[in-house]
């Protein structure tokens, strides 16, 4: 009883415990903030990795594999498979409206199927927004303007069909009736790719004023989003079935929308195209197979033939059809993405592919060669690196936080010395050694609880406002700690979970009690007569 009374009075009557609490607060906040940001980085990285990949991929890069519709149908019959999506992954050059050429990763997708396997639907950026973002108090986000909701909805629909039909027809015809066109494949750009959008601190994107090259060679300043009226030129270098490069192919695509995953590397370097269009450009669409001579040249079996009636053009003989190819088939499993389920799903896909390869022997890569990976496998190197870096940084900061133990120890040592006579008084009144020990340990615990609570509050305030703080530091002091080109994400991700709070705060409290323990034992061991005579 007397311990609680004295603890309360010591806490409120001296500056020393305040200093000790501040030490615990800073250490607790430091570890929580570091863990929260590193953990958030890892969690976001892992989750975003799944956004564009699905659960399991079947891949044969660059050349691709055929009969993917058959494989998809077989997979979708499996009770554990929810959906599949064929895609093509390639690299290319994209010409932007201001004349820049950017090297990008191209993904040819079937928008509707891709959205069933990944979170593509959620990442489509230009869409009608019924409620402004939490930090957009001024309602400055263009997507919240009700009068434009119809047009944004149509942009969203177009991003799913990957075609420009209604929107481009109407908008472009309004500006230039000659440009009225039939529905045609479009491009969906990563939101950071063009460089024409800037992120507002409230979390949404706004278009930048930019120069646009007009067909007559003149330039004009525009300030609107790309999907309204702009096109990009995509250049690819197709490979033949044996992997040899052929002539470069260029094609203009109207921009129909942009997407935002939050993963900088993806948002900055990815362009989505309609699957069929990219297949055509890369010569991976279905094609006639013609008869060739022993050297593989078609000219000797077709071309100009001399007959009695004169010269005659002879077409090469069609001997079959090469089916369309894709480089990757994405598979989405039913249920959650737990590692055990992923491994089970991969095993099922492997079994199904083995049967598929046997049925198309010689026409598709065999089961031992094809790459069948979970999304975790695909990112294993980076995920493991981030996990290890998180553990390392956390260990270092926890070690640094041990200074709090020694700081509390030093402060308590000094306080015990200062209170020597009071310890003697308590002993003369019958307080036991255990009682004196508990008085000081309890005091240390109280300081730990206060410090940990303040540290939690401080870390919560910093973590929940870390992006505005970072932007403010950038604007006022020119400090940019979090560079998205290095750290992948356009915003600093955080993850302040209850478990982390519990572990770190408990650690803070126990550290403080540990720091108090030695001085407490010293106090308890004091000879009461000597303590009473202490000057």
């Amino acid at each position, binding site marked *: 009883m007397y311990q609680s009374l*004295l603890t309360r009075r010591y806490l409120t009557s001296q500056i020393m415990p305040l200093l000790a609490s501040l030490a615990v607060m800073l250490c607790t906040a430091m570890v929580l903030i570091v863990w929260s940001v590193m953990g958030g980085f890892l969690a976001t990285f892992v989750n975003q990795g799944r956004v564009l990949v699905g659960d399991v991929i079947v891949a044969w890069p660059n050349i691709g594999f055929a009969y993917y519709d058959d494989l998809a149908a077989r997979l979708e019959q499996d009770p554990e498979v929810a959906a599949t999506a064929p895609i093509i992954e390639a690299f290319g050059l994209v010409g932007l409206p201001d004349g820049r050429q950017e090297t990008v990763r191209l993904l040819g997708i079937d928008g509707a199927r891709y959205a069933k396997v990944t979170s593509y639907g959620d990442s489509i950026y230009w869409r009608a927004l019924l409620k402004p973002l939490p930090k957009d108090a001024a309602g400055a986000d263009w997507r919240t303007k009700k009068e434009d909701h119809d047009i944004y909805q149509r942009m969203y629909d177009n991003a799913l069909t990957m075609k420009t039909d209604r929107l481009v027809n109407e908008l472009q015809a309004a500006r230039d009736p000659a440009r009225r066109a039939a529905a045609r494949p479009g491009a969906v750009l990563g939101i950071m790719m063009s460089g024409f959008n800037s992120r507002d601190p409230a979390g949404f994107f706004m278009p930048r004023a930019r120069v646009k090259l007009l067909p007559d060679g003149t330039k004009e300043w525009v300030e609107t989003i790309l999907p309204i009226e702009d096109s990009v030129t995509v250049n690819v270098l197709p490979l033949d079935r044996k992997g040899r490069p052929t002539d470069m192919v260029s094609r203009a695509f109207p921009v129909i929308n942009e997407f935002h995953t939050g993963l900088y590397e993806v948002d900055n370097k990815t362009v989505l195209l309609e699957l069929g269009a990219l297949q055509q450009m890369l010569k991976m669409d279905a094609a006639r197979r013609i008869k060739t001579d022993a050297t593989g040249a078609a000219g000797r079996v077709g071309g100009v033939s001399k007959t009695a009636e004169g010269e005659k053009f002879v077409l090469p003989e069609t001997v079959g059809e090469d089916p369309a190819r894709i480089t990757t088939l994405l598979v989405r499993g039913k249920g959650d993405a737990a590692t055990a389920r992923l491994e089970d799903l991969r095993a099922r896909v492997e079994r199904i592919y083995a049967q598929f390869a046997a049925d198309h022997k010689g026409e598709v890569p065999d089961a031992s060669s094809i790459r069948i990976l979970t999304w975790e496998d695909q990112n294993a190197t980076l995920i493991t690196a981030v996990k290890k870096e998180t553990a390392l940084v956390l260990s270092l900061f926890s070690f640094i936080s041990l200074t709090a133990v020694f700081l509390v120890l030093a402060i308590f040592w000094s306080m015990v010395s200062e209170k020597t006579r009071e310890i003697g008084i308590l002993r*003369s009144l019958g307080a036991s050694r255990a*009682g004196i020990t508990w008085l000081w340990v309890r005091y240390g615990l109280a300081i730990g609880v206060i410090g940990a609570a303040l540290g939690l509050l401080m870390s919560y305030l910093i973590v929940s406002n870390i992006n505005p703080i970072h932007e403010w530091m950038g604007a006022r002091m020119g400090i940019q700690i979090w560079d998205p080109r290095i750290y992948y994400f356009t915003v600093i991700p955080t993850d302040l979970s209850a478990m982390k709070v519990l572990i770190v705060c408990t650690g803070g409290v126990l550290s403080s009690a540990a720091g108090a323990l030695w001085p407490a034992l010293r106090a308890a061991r004091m000879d009461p007569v000597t303590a009473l005579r202490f000057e």
Partner: protein
Amino acid sequence: MPPLIQVRSLRKTYRLGRVDVPVLRGVSLDVQEGEFLAILGASGSGKSTLLHLLGGLDRPDSGNELTMRFGDVDLTRMSAGKRDAFRNSSVGFVFQFYHLLPELTVRENVLIAAMIALGRLRYASQAAVLKAHAEQLLETVGLSHRLDHKPRELSGGERQRVAIARALMNKPRALLADEPTGNLDRETGKTILDLFTSLHHAGQTMVVVTHDAATAARADRVIRLRDGLVVQEDPDTPLVGAAGGKR
């Protein structure tokens, strides 16, 4: 009737560096229940050490002839825990420099002895009764108007009266006072001695260590310590104080 306190051949030696310094060299004395005993002696004669040993604050040197009893209890065979409980409930200390806890109020300084004795639950169940008892003790010593003051807000005499109330809180069988007026002016000291006298008349056993003749004059019996030995134990012996009074 057996004495409340019975001491035979009490010795205590302190070690200073490599040198053993005997402070008590075989003290024997009895204190009857309800008696007011004064222990006189010069500085360094061992009187405070004797008081600490009687109150269980310190341990005597062991010896075959050593006897140290308090009522039915053999102080030489007490465990540390029992010694703590003994200090808490059987004796009450009053020190020359008051030794109040500066962070606590007057009321809390008195109550803390009960808090130590009872623990959280038992104290909480009796809190109202104990507070009333503490306030009544403070009223007895004339401090009922100072209950919520801190020690730094009190005069020396008031502080000593708080210390006396605290010593009496757990109704000890003996009050042990070490130079209780040594830090007070004559007038304030007289007030404290009047308080001691009234307590004695109420039946409180008291052992007071002093070198002040006026204090000793209030006692039933006086013993004198010199160089760790009782050199005089005669209630009828005239005493002369430092100021040139009776010897």
